[in-house]
């Protein structure tokens, strides 16, 4: 009976891995404990040890193959007294799509990034911990055809392991050429049922395509070999923690919206970032004057209290008027060039939450009007009383974490905006003026730009204009 070597799970959450390297060739004798292959996960490369003795009869999954699902058949070992050639022939039939045995050894490690491949420097303890699991997976012997007999089609085919699916789902998947290992089951205990297969057929997903697909994504992610990575399942994440060691808090709609919109923004918007330092001593002085001139009401409260952030809002709005090509929204068909600067302002909510009310036509509003509007928004946002028309739309946004002492950061663009300005803390820094050291209050601001609508030079013009207004704040008043 040939022994199936299956893709081991190197951690409880591992769902697939890359077969980085075969350390044994077909025909090599194997002893229990021999390292036969290297498997690469997103974190490390680990060794696969043989559990049984025999001859490596057939390599089913060639090295360099990415995203091999856990428990997929990767090789066959001919046991004592078995003819490796017969085992290989039998195995070939049960593993369609695998390279023919003669070719397999020729495959080189081209696809395996050297850095990861060397990372056999995986912590010893972790490798040791993984070993028992790989035992259980690898010692799973399937009812493969007897040596020499013509291979009968096995319902387990490429997976090698039992797939938890209904008979009808299995049959429909087989006829449609779908790999059940790539379909998420929605039935009891994750069983794959007819509707899952039908959904996969409609979605065009799960086609049996074992080879790594060339990814169209830019070089942003060096390890971007996985086609459209899907997040780990909730169950897989929960497995990382002791049951009872955490409290499960269901998402409210705001959390879901934040997750959906910002994930979408990060995945679909090509963003780049521009940072400048602004000296704000003049701005602080003007703010003092403006606030000092506020008439006091009956209760002694001043009629307005303008914050630095209110002035940044105004500066951004004025800058957009000066650089109108950057006051745009990308759509597939056209560029929407806005006539006014509607500036969204990220407001943090108690606990954890975020909403972005919008100061409409901020370029036309006085600092005191902006300050009043923001005060009202902030109060109502915290009570979650904002109306949709007060936080939907907008042409840009400001996110300010300066009050937390954050020096600088980058913010995620909130579509349909093309830009967002991340504002850091104003702090006294040493600056050099005409070759002399001086002390100034400096605030770093970072503009995230949607490259589809705002190119680098345009973004630079915009942030320069913002800087100019901030450093010459009187110009905002005229």
């Amino acid at each position, binding site marked *: 009976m040939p022994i199936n070597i299956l893709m081991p799970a190197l951690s409880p959450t591992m769902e697939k891995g890359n077969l980085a390297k075969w350390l044994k060739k077909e025909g090599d004798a194997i002893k229990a404990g021999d390292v036969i292959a290297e498997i690469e996960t997103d974190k490390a490369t680990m060794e696969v040890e043989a559990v049984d003795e025999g001859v490596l009869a057939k390599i089913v999954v060639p090295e360099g193959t990415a995203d091999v699902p856990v428990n997929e058949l990767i090789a066959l070992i001919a046991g004592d007294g078995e003819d490796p050639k017969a085992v290989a022939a039998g195995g070939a039939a049960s593993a369609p799509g695998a390279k023919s045995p003669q070719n397999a050894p020729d495959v080189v490690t081209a696809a395996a990034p050297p850095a990861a491949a060397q990372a056999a420097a995986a912590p010893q303890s972790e490798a040791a911990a993984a070993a028992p699991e790989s035992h259980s997976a690898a010692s799973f012997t399937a009812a493969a055809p007897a040596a020499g007999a013509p291979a009968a089609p096995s319902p387990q085919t490429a997976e090698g392991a039992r797939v938890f699916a209904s*008979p009808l789902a299995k049959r429909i998947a087989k*006829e449609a050429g779908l790999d059940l290992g790539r379909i998420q089951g929605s039935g009891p205990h994750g069983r794959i049922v*007819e509707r899952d297969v039908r959904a996969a057929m409609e979605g065009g997903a799960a086609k049996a395509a074992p080879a790594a697909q060339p990814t169209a994504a830019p070089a942003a992610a060096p390890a971007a070999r996985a086609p459209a990575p899907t997040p780990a399942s909730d169950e897989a994440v929960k497995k990382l923690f002791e049951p009872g060691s955490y409290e499960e808090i269901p998402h409210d709609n705001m959390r879901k919206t934040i997750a959906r919109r910002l994930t979408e923004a990060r995945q679909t918007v090509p963003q780049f970032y521009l940072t400048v330092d602004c000296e704000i001593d003049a701005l602080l002085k003007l703010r003092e004057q403006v606030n000092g001139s506020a008439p006091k009401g009956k209760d002694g409260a001043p009629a307005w209290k303008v914050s630095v952030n209110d002035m940044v809002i105004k500066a951004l709005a004025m800058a957009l008027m000066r650089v109108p090509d950057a006051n745009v929204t990308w759509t597939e068909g056209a560029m929407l060039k806005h006539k006014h600067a509607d500036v969204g302002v990220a407001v943090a909510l108690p606990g954890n939450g975020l909403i972005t009310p919008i100061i409409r036509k901020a370029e036309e509003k006085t600092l005191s009007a902006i300050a009043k509007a923001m005060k009202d928004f902030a109060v109502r946002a915290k009570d979650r009383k904002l109306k949709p028309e007060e936080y939907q739309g907008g042409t840009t946004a400001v996110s300010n974490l300066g009050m937390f002492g954050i020096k600088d950061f980058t913010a995620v663009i909130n579509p349909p905006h093309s830009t967002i300005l991340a504002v850091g803390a104003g702090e006294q820094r040493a600056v050099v003026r005409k070759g002399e050291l001086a002390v100034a209050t400096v605030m770093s601001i970072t503009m995230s730009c949607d490259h589809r609508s705002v190119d680098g030079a345009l973004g630079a013009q915009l942030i320069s204009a913002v800087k100019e207004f901030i450093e010459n704040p009187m110009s905002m008043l005229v």
Partner: protein
Amino acid sequence: MAETYDVIIIGGGPGGYVTAIRAAQLGFKTAVVEREHLGGICLNWGCIPTKALLRSAEIYHYMQHPQAYGLTLQGQPGFDPAAVVKRSRNVSAQLNQGVGFLLKKNKVDVIWGEAFITKPGEVKVSAPKKPAVQPQNPVPKGVKGEGTYAAKHIIVATGARPRVLPGIEPDGKLIWTYFEAMKPDAFPKSLIVIGSGAIGIEFASFYRTMGAEVTVVEVLPQILPVEDAEIAALARKRFEKQGMKILSGAKVTKVEKGANSVTATIQDEKGATQTLTAERLISAVGVVCNTENLGLEGLGVKMDRGSIVTDGLGRTNVPGIYAIGDVAGPPMLAHKAEHEGVICIETIKGLHTHAMDKLKIPGCTYCNPQVASVGLTEAKAKEQGYQVKVGRFPFVGNGKAIALGEPDGLVKTIFDAKTGKLLGAHMVGAEVTELIQGYVVAMNLETTEEELIHAVFPHPTLSEMMHESVLDAYGRVIHV
């Protein structure tokens, strides 16, 4: 301060009380509002007491043919209508008390009276409009009464009542609904039954066996209209052989009441009319939902053709208001209501639920011969574009059926030729109501013909016919 619950269920029928028990299991503080009888129509006036009546009829039928089994009887077999009815009522009473016990055991409060939803989260209960009658007399001990009660979740499970045709309004004396047909003072010597659905045909079968001249009038060309045509035709043949008169494609246009008789004018498809006089007439032309006087209109709960619209998980368009069972639409069956209720409360709990696949709900009719089915009929399957493989196996080829003296019947299976999916199963004959769930399990597990063929069926049983029918669909039948 109104007493506050997590869940209030309006209606203590099979949908309501099962939902309540499941709710209690899930840790909800639960109450059921009931105005007439725990266990609902099903247990008190429907499914259960008719089975008791039909059991009497079945035994009486065997007593009339003792020689078929080599037996003799001293004298003529006979029956006592009052005793037959009493047995049926006692069966209901026993189960009715059982429901009360189950609710108590699960710490579900029972509130006795008529419920009105004043607003989401609040139910006002007033005194019941109808007096308590056997089997729910006296009203169970320890129930709460009139008052205002609060609950985060309100589940409407108020069931349905007989549909009334204009001009054929039941009077409780000559024109009956299932209520009167269930507990007659005497068995009529002649009877007209309007409607050949499950309720009509069960009473027709019962009274025919008890010796009445029975005429069934069905407006559609086929009796048992929801069943597979082939099965319905076989059943009809058996009914007619027993002496039942069946007028299909015919409608009752007029009913005149005499002193102790009813004369119906019946019009056939071609427009020809005839009159027929019988002692009693049963109107069994379907049911309508009990959606009135609950406050649903005021809350803006969405309705469609008399039933409450839900999302399949029991939720209506109004948050906090749910509907299950008959009021949530067809099929109006107790087991559908129970299952729907469980899905609803588990959804409220936040468990992972799926809407029920209504095609996988079996239906059973306990006439003689029995009829049972699940899934698509052959005609429906073809209509939906399936290429079908149909298997048939007759009772006469089954050893157990012959030994029982029940050689009439058929097991029919319908498969999708392309995938081997079991699309439907339809049976007529002895005990088929107890067999159908085998196919129901198979369908829910999404088996194909292969697993059914590989399964071992015990010998000698009627269930072997289920195996043979599958074999027949794939050209492998043994015993024909």
